[in-house]
């Protein structure tokens, strides 16, 4: 069964299953999909509970499980996931998906001791060439999916390694803090993906915080967008900049419930950038470790407020870098600067 059925509202599926204007075969198909959705939801809930319990009880399992297998599938411009398996290396898009996904897995393993998104070696699956001229990349709860772009506003979404890091980090968040996707938790969720996506890009390029450009999606911008002066999706160092396709708020006083996560994420994005720059060196060595512990070191809190996350990083900065008080000072000042 295609994953297309997973998020059609169950009440719609059930209504179709009883719609006598549809053929018997169509009604049965909708009834089967509704039953599948019910079972799938139970399975997801159970898996989430087991995963959370295992994370608590088996802290060493990341070291004992095998590293993740990397798989890539080709949608051949269709929309049925995952598509056809691609043997390594495949075309240029497939090779980037293989190489950069492996690099993200290495990034999490080497820097944070995390084994895949679930910390238990989950296979990292990517689908490429999704749909036609598709201007997006997404995480669907199970895998990554990348469009080729329309060649004007955007080019192939595998071209920006921070985009690959961003999507995989949605998986890490799903299996750790389990942040929701609305209001303050939604903004944090998106910010966490930008933070670790950008950090991954800096790590790949061996860039210090002063050398990094802090741009999200710089390498997927197409000629039409560049001609209009857009250099990136978002700029963590200057979220309201005119060169961003998505210009974001920079202070918590601008936050309102109901904002899209891709908008409100500018506030914690700027806090991380300010903290990392004030600490100096490489973003993944101190600020990154504090952010990672704030994300993964606590019980899931789906509706977390930004202030809660900020205070976690303050507490962790003190405990993790007790001999380096400049880390706490930098992080504290960064959050204060954005109103948190």
């Amino acid at each position, binding site marked *: 069964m295609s*994953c*297309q059925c*997973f*998020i*059609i*509202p169950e*009440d*719609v599926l059930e*209504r*179709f299953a009883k*719609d006598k*204007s*549809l053929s018997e075969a*169509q009604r049965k198909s909708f009834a089967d999909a509704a039953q599948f959705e019910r079972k799938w939801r139970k399975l*997801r809930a159970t898996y989430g509970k087991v995963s959370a319990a295992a994370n608590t009880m088996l802290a060493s399992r990341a070291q004992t499980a095998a590293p993740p297998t990397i798989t890539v599938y080709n949608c051949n411009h269709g*929309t049925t996931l995952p598509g056809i398996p691609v043997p390594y290396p495949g075309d240029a898009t497939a090779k980037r998906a293989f190489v950069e996904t492996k690099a993200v897995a290495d990034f999490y393993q080497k820097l944070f001791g995390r084994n895949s998104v679930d910390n238990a070696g989950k296979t990292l699956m990517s689908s490429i060439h999704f749909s036609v001229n598709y*201007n*997006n*990349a*997404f*995480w*669907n*709860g*199970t895998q990554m999916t990348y469009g080729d772009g*329309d060649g004007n*506003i*955007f080019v192939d*979404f595998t071209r920006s390694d921070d*985009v690959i890091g*961003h*999507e995989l980090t*949605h998986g890490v968040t*799903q299996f750790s803090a389990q942040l*929701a*996707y*609305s209001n303050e938790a939604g903004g944090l*969720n998106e910010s966490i*993906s930008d933070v670790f996506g950008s950090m991954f890009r800096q790590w790949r390029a061996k860039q210090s915080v002063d050398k990094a450009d802090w741009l999200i*999606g710089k390498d997927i911008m197409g000629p*039409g*967008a560049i001609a*209009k002066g*857009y250099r990136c*999706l978002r700029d963590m160092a200057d979220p*309201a900049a005119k060169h*961003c*396709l*998505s*210009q*974001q*708020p920079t202070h918590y006083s601008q936050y309102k419930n109901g*904002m*899209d996560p*891709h*908008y409100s994420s500018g506030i914690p994005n700027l806090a991380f950038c300010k903290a990392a720059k004030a600490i100096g060196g490489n973003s993944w060595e101190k600020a990154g470790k504090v952010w990672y512990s704030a994300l993964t070191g606590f019980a899931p809190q789906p509706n977390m407020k930004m202030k809660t996350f900020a205070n976690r990083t303050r507490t962790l900065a003190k405990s993790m870098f007790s001999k380096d008080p400049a880390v706490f000072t930098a992080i504290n000042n960064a959050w204060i600067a954005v109103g948190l």
Partner: protein
Amino acid sequence: MPNEIDLLLVERIGGLAGFGVAGSRIRCRGQLAFNSLPDTDQRLVEALFKGHGKSKPSAQRDTFSYRISCARKFGAKTVEVPEAALPATIIACVKDELI
């Protein structure tokens, strides 16, 4: 006459780039006649408007959603639907543009 047709107004929102959200410089809109949809797609749209208007939370991140309205047929109500729940006929009517 266009104003006598039940026009569906469709806007794609969200995605990694934040289409159509506050501060965004990219948007994606389109329209099509409700009657031009195949029968099954028409029934799907009717069911969506009879539903709760917004889908349940899911584990999907950075996926597109679509805001759909059809004033003549469904009044002032606007529904927000995940991309995977929509037929290709509706998705195909929108066009991305920079603003």
